[in-house]
């Protein structure tokens, strides 16, 4: 095939991220892709840039009372409450499938306490299938821990430092958008030794049934995701990427290649696809193709040439 100089072949994009080598910059976001297996019928998992698991906690979590989901304009609010079987069951039940994948598997961890985060990191560091950790300090749906660590720069620093001490695995700190100044937690994570940051987790939101005056989910508030939060996410990626030197992974309402390109221009080195997986099981690979189509059309050799090219 005749190609223009500098233009790489489709699928050639190689991303160096936090010491991880990704085939392409499209990953799947925690909690929206199960442990991978759930989507294996629908798309070739080995074509993803990387897979990030649903949050794993040290002990099993039952999750929040239903209803756990409500649809809102161009988005949804969830109150899952980090339901998972706990670390031991994760290693026993989920790792064997993940071990067969050829792409980097990043495990998302969530603790109630700093010690739990460190313990999770230590244990997962022994699993050779696990190529990196995404530290969820931004879940709005749990009473203890979760977002509390992600809205206070001091707590962010403490958690990430503890995880850093517990493992040599690459660490991605997943930040919360529920803050006034994202650069503070971004810098705290960087100073504590994170290799990358990912943002945003869900935005705290609320939906009320006007007949019963009760919440339309099982708890008063939940986490808003989907296209509705994309402008917030793009803005926060823009601000955070200017504040830190480590790579930034953009998350929030990415449905198409154009959406991903927007994040690259704002400063993201890679993206995670979340809610879109529920709407279109082929979303991550379709988005990857659309990114490549854009690059080809604009005669851009590599998505790296786009990163942080926003014109003030």
């Amino acid at each position, binding site marked *: 095939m005749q190609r223009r100089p500098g233009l790489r072949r489709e699928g050639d994009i190689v991303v160096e991220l936090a010491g991880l080598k990704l085939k392409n910059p499209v990953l799947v976001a925690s909690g929206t892709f199960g442990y991978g297996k759930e989507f294996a019928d629908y798309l070739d998992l080995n074509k993803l840039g990387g897979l990030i698991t649903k949050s794993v906690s040290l002990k099993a979590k039952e999750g929040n009372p239903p209803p756990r*989901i409500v649809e809102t304009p161009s988005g949804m609010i969830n109150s899952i409450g980090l339901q998972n079987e706990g670390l031991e069951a994760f290693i026993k039940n989920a790792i064997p499938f993940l071990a067969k994948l050829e792409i980097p598997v990043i495990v998302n961890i969530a603790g109630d306490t700093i010690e739990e985060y460190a313990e999770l990191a230590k244990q997962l560091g022994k699993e050779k299938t696990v190529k990196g950790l995404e530290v969820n300090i931004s879940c709005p749906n749990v009473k203890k821990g979760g977002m509390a660590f992600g809205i206070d720069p001091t707590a962010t620093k403490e958690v990430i430092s503890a995880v850093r001490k517990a493992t040599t695995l690459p660490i991605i700190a997943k930040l919360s958008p529920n803050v006034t100044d994202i650069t503070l937690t971004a810098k705290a994570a960087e100073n504590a030794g994170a290799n990358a940051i990912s943002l945003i987790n869900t935005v705290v939101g609320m939906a009320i049934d006007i007949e019963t005056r009760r919440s339309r989910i099982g708890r008063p508030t939940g986490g808003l995701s989907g296209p509705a939060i994309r402008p917030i996410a793009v803005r926060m990626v823009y601000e955070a990427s200017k504040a830190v030197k480590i790579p930034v992974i953009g998350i929030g309402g990415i*449905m198409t290649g154009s959406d991903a390109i927007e994040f690259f221009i704002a400063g993201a080195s890679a993206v995670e696809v979340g809610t879109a997986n529920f709407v*279109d099981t*082929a979303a991550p690979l379709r988005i990857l193709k659309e990114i490549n189509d854009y690059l080809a059309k604009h005669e851009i050799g590599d998505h790296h040439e786009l990163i942080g090219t926003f014109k003030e």
Partner: protein
Amino acid sequence: MATQEQCQVLDHKQVGPRYFKLTLKSHYISTNGEPGQFVNVRVDNGTEPLLRRPISLHRINKEHQTFELLYEVVGEGTTLLTKATIGSKVDVLGPLGSGFKLDPAKKIAILVGGGMGIAPLAALAEKLKTLGGRAVYALAGARDKSCLVCEDELASLANQSVVATDDGSQGRKGYVSDLLIDLLNNTVTQIHYPETAIYACGPKGMLKAVAEIAGQKKIACQLSLEEKMACGIGACLGCSVMTINGYKTVCKDGPVFDAKEISW
């Protein structure tokens, strides 16, 4: 196993004041789909509404490689779905979930449908008829006469079919659970209980009433539940219901559950 497929619309017609029947072509879904399973339908390509809509397999025609959906227009999503024209394609994910389990020892099947809960029971009645060797009773309940949508279909598939309406505008005045009590008192009496299975689908209140009746009389009973869904494939844990074994997903562990399993 399931597939995400662009299914061609072969037929789409209004069958009642707010009811529509949609016939779609799919080799995969018609071959693999079982009664009680559902598909997750993308009603529009935009982001409004964002999520797919779960709809039960109403009829499965393996020979013609088609399946039918019977749905009620209740909001934005189902309104948009009515716009699907014959010849166009609809994005469907399925067949999903675990359907009704059929026990050969149960020679008597009682199908109990409340409102749109009737939709999956037609596929079940048809399967039971094909398998043969069973007496099939179909009980359908609705608010009023205009809300009875497929009782003719059920009548043709079942050995006996009875209807009830809340206002008495057709059939017995009362709830479908009253029909069940009648049937269990008069026709399928105590000596038959060990060989009887009840299959119910409908609003939560009705399912609870049916579960209570079945529990009292110690009759095997399966219920098809509903919960708001995002993924439909067991990945988001958004559709959880509480069971005696902890939270289970309606989309994957269900939608059909053993009545004894549900914590109301």
